[in-house]
């Protein structure tokens, strides 16, 4: 075995962490900054994945497209379409508050999944789309993976820097103000529905990007890849565990959750055969347990949101106090 191939598994793990990192940052824009409870991550992931698949595959009988475009065009198209679909959904659904929004977005994601499963002309339904190109996919195994890691890591870095820039700008401060005290922000003359829609569309486009990155890695997309368990809820755990509102936190969450999830199987395989089989179910349990422990002992996440000039701990507590006795003083931070 060539020495470089020893790296194959860590590299694959890292590619997946980058893809989940994109999803987590997308959710962080929505939940961490704007307080939007989007439980339909899988839906936007699916839109991105299928869009890029349709744009970049060669022509196929019986379904739309196969436009044979280059991969970057597919990725850009994925982000655009995810944003475009998020816009009307946001217009309708963002009127709902927190938990109602969660219910509506679950419904939307489920709708998207059923469309992907059923509409033959669009997604080739249950059989899915195969033969999707991967940049540098013709290189030998290890080199192809390293090249793809380079691409995903570079994209993730760009996304991270842009979102960080956005978060420290007046826009970011305003989003936090809307999140923590909507009435006060409105009183300050902020266009709350419009701003929430901005955050929703931006976050959804980032999720679409993650879908595109996934599809060019796997080179195939079938409806069972948009399982809410693996796409929506795992991402939520990453965000909550890492620290919502902090991009470095959610990236740390992505690393921890995916590495534990993937590598725990290597550990459980050392057990005797009869336990090793049962232990496969233990992986999900382990992630759930981790979430419980973090929520119990560190509810703000491992790397909590860092706010400037915090005289007392717990801006969240202050925000809660604001809600009972509105004092608009801190809105401009």
């Amino acid at each position: 075995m060539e020495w470089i191939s020893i790296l194959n598994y860590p590299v694959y793990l890292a590619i997946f962490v980058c893809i989940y990192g994109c999803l987590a940052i997308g959710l962080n824009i929505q939940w961490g900054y704007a307080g939007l409870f989007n439980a339909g991550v899988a839906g936007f992931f699916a839109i991105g994945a299928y869009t890029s698949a349709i744009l970049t595959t060669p022509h196929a009988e019986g379904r739309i497209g196969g436009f044979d475009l280059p991969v970057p065009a597919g990725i850009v198209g994925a982000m655009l379409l995810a944003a475009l679909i998020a816009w009307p959904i946001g217009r309708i659904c963002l009127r709902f508050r927190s938990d109602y929004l969660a219910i509506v977005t679950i419904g939307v994601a489920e709708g998207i999944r059923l469309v992907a499963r059923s509409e033959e002309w669009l997604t080739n339904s249950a059989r899915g789309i195969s033969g999707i190109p991967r940049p540098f996919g013709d290189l030998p195994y290890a080199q192809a993976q390293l090249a793809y890691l380079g691409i995903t890591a570079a994209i993730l870095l760009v996304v991270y820097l842009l979102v960080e820039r956005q978060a420290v700008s007046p826009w970011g401060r305003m989003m936090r103000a809307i999140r923590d005290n909507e009435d006060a922000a409105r009183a300050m003359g902020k266009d709350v529905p419009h701003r929430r829609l901005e955050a929703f569309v931006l976050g959804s486009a980032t999720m679409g990007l993650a879908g595109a990155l996934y599809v060019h890695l796997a080179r195939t997309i079938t409806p069972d890849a948009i399982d809410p368990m693996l796409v929506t809820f795992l991402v939520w755990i990453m965000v909550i565990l890492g620290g919502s509102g902090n991009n470095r936190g959610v990236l740390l969450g992505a690393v921890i959750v995916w590495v534990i999830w993937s590598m725990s199987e290597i550990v459980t395989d050392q057990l005797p055969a009869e336990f090793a089989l049962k232990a496969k179910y233990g992986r999900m349990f382990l992630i759930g347990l981790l979430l419980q422990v973090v929520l119990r002992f560190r509810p703000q996440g491992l790397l909590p949101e860092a706010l400037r000039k915090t005289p007392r701990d717990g801006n969240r507590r202050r925000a809660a106090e604001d809600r009972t006795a509105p004092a608009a003083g801190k809105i401009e931070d």
Partner: protein
Amino acid sequence: MNRKLMGLAFALLGTSALAGPALADVNIGLLAGITGGAAAMAPEITRSYQFAVDQVNEQGGLLNGQKLVGVSADDGCSPQVAADAATKLVNVSGVIGVVGPWCSGALLAAANSATIPAGVLLISPAATSPEITTLKDNDLVFRTIPSDEYQGQALARTLLERGTKKVAVSFINNDYGKGIAEAFKKEYEAKGGEIAGYEAHEENKSSYRSDLANLAQGGADTLVLLDYGDTSGLTVLREAIENGFFKNFVGAEGMKTSAPIKAIGAENLTTFMASAPISSKSEALEIFNKAFSGIGGDINASYVAPSYDAVFLMALAIEKAGGDKSKLSQSLRAVSNGKGEPIMPGEWKKAKELIDAGKEIDYKGASGDVDFDANGDVPGSYALFKVAGDDYAIVTEMK
């Protein structure tokens, strides 16, 4: 600088190679849907995997007495989980071949992202999507289970032969149901049958009466139900019988489980038939059934015979290739191409001696002859079953 690093890496590699035992065990990956949608089938299939591994080891092992080690991993019936598991098997466990996954979407992802680039042979005992036939696989992906395409076609021809000229088709909306339904429809219409209603239904709904009412409007009195008998297929069948939407019912192998007989009763299922792959009533199957039930296995469980064959064929291919990964797919074709001394399930010792003596062998699998075509698929042999008492009995073989 770079050269120094390379030198260091090679030095490390050298020491690790020296440290390794001369007769390392041979690892193969056993991907199984232990969690996820196919979990109900897991206990018997993993037992069947392990049974084949044990037989090989009990009868002298591989090559120069090395042990065959099956490293089991979970494919979760999900593309992400399967690709992750396959990457671990190939790179961490160092397997030279993989048996599984069971679900077609999972197989496509695992093969594309790990086994094909790594040049590792993959044999699936249960993934039936026609999409796998056309996969660009460098001749590294094989199946011991026929594609849905074959079964759908065979079912269509058999129904027409038996004089059923008009049917309604209801199928579960996933790759399995859709794959069979499409192949059935194409063949049935091409041979002059009429499809009076063709609809997918979602799994795990509490009632399918409205779907059934729609289908019944077409005026067919036979319902072709392509679903799983343990879950939604059972509900559809029960509601169709209760409400008298149809008179006759025909299912595929997913419906041929004990659940309908237990839940609905044999006396109500006199007009119910199901097609399923049969192993051509072969001597090989009898040998396998006897041996497998001898260790407490359930011979009527789905996919146990193809699973056993997949592992046994993998072992034969490794033996034939002398443990050389790059020759595995070529060797796999060589050990089961219809030419040479027949080898029955469990005859590992005989096979090994013949291979070592340089003779041609031909494995006769429990699930059929498993002679692979150019795409790595096997043609299926099927029969139509009816309910007889607590079990199923063959009505006719399907061509």
